[in-house]
């Protein structure tokens, strides 16, 4: 909208042009604030919080109406709401194809990736309720502080690191690749950690994603026994695998279908086997 003060003189052609221009701008504003979303629009309820904006310091839910397109995802709906109604609506996203792991959200009561979740597939596809990941502090709207999650991931030393540098190429057998295949799929979205009741109560618990990472390297045959022993120390520490109470929440929400509980249980058995040796 123009910042110039329009001339009050009716006969001034400049003022007339300005007045017409403002009228058109107002029409455009009107159109964008009330777009035609159709009769079967999706009701999108979004958690809002912003410590820097007076009326958003107390968290609240805002409602947006989004046209129902075939195949529309929750992320699409959020983008529509942001671009159409409120440019301050804040959420992370990047790849839009369940690869980057940046848009794990709490959608209709469950941790899911916004980009991987089609509205039509939700239990309630009329009203979509989007909240930031539970058990993480909210920075703004749907953006949570992921630092603690990344700290837990780093704690298991999530990189290939044999004790001694290999001379040449290190080949992995097909069987071993199969063994760790699922565990390599993690996209660090944090959905599992957010769903875990035990992680919520114990800030030091490594959590499902980190333990799964530990699994990925523990079972990688290209690392030596000494390194494997070190990895087991991390895995079976006080706040490691033994904290898991097999609630299966992580496995239920993981967008990459990693059998997290199975991996945690297998590492528990590895820990028992290495400590109980009667032979």
């Amino acid at each position, binding site marked *: 909208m123009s910042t110039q003060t329009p001339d009050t003189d009716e006969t001034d052609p400049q003022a007339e042009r300005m007045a017409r221009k403002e009228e058109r701008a107002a029409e455009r504003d009107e159109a964008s604030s009330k777009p035609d979303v159709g009769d079967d629009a999706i009701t999108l309820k979004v958690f809002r*919080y912003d*410590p820097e904006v007076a009326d958003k310091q107390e968290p609240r839910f805002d409602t947006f109406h989004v046209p129902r397109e075939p195949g529309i995802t929750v992320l699409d709906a959020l983008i529509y709401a942001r671009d159409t109604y409120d440019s301050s609506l804040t959420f992370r996203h990047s790849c839009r194809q369940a690869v980057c792991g940046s848009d794990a959200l709490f959608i209709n*009561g469950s941790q899911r990736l916004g980009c991987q979740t089609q509205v039509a597939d939700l239990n309630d596809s009329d009203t979509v309720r989007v909240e930031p990941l*539970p058990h993480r*502090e909210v920075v703004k709207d749907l953006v949570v502080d992921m630092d603690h999650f990344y700290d837990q991931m780093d704690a298991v030393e999530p990189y290939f690191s044999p004790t001694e540098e290999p001379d040449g190429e290190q080949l992995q057998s097909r069987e071993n690749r199969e063994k760790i295949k699922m565990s390599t799929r993690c996209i660090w979205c944090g959905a599992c950690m957010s769903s875990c009741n035990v992680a919520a109560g114990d800030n030091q618990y490594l959590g499902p994603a980190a333990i799964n990472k530990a699994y990925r390297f523990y079972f990688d045959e290209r690392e030596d026994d000494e390194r494997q022993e070190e990895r087991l120390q991390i895995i079976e520490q006080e706040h490691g695998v033994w904290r898991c109470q*097999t609630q299966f*929440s992580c*496995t*239920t929400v993981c967008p990459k279908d990693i059998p997290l509980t199975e991996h945690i249980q297998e590492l528990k*058995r590895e820990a028992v086997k290495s400590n109980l040796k009667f032979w």
Partner: protein
Amino acid sequence: MSQSHNRGLVEDFGRWREFSAGMWAWVFHKFTGWVLIGYLFTHIAVLSSALSGGAAYTNTLQGLEQLAVVRVLEVGLLAVAVFHILNGIRLLFVDLGVGLDLDTQEKSFYASLILTGIIVVASVPVFLEGL
């Protein structure tokens, strides 16, 4: 980051409607486990009436068994114990790495619930007999 919002832990159990099968299995298992421990104390208290002689013991037991509340509580105790045992067996399989896929673990939980229900219903006539 200047400030962030902590939603606290309360949200967890406030969301019980959204719990998955595995979460319910966990809640029920903890609950039944602790109820059994609680029962252990009343059990010892009742048994220790035998310290005052055989007659005192018989009187205590007969007195208790005449009360309808006690009979109903006994059915409840059976339900709690049976669920804890059946789901406990399920958890032992989980620890052995058997049936850890989501489908099997959910179904085995529902199976423990249904079996508990059947056993409890079948036991009602026995527990309420002669009231």
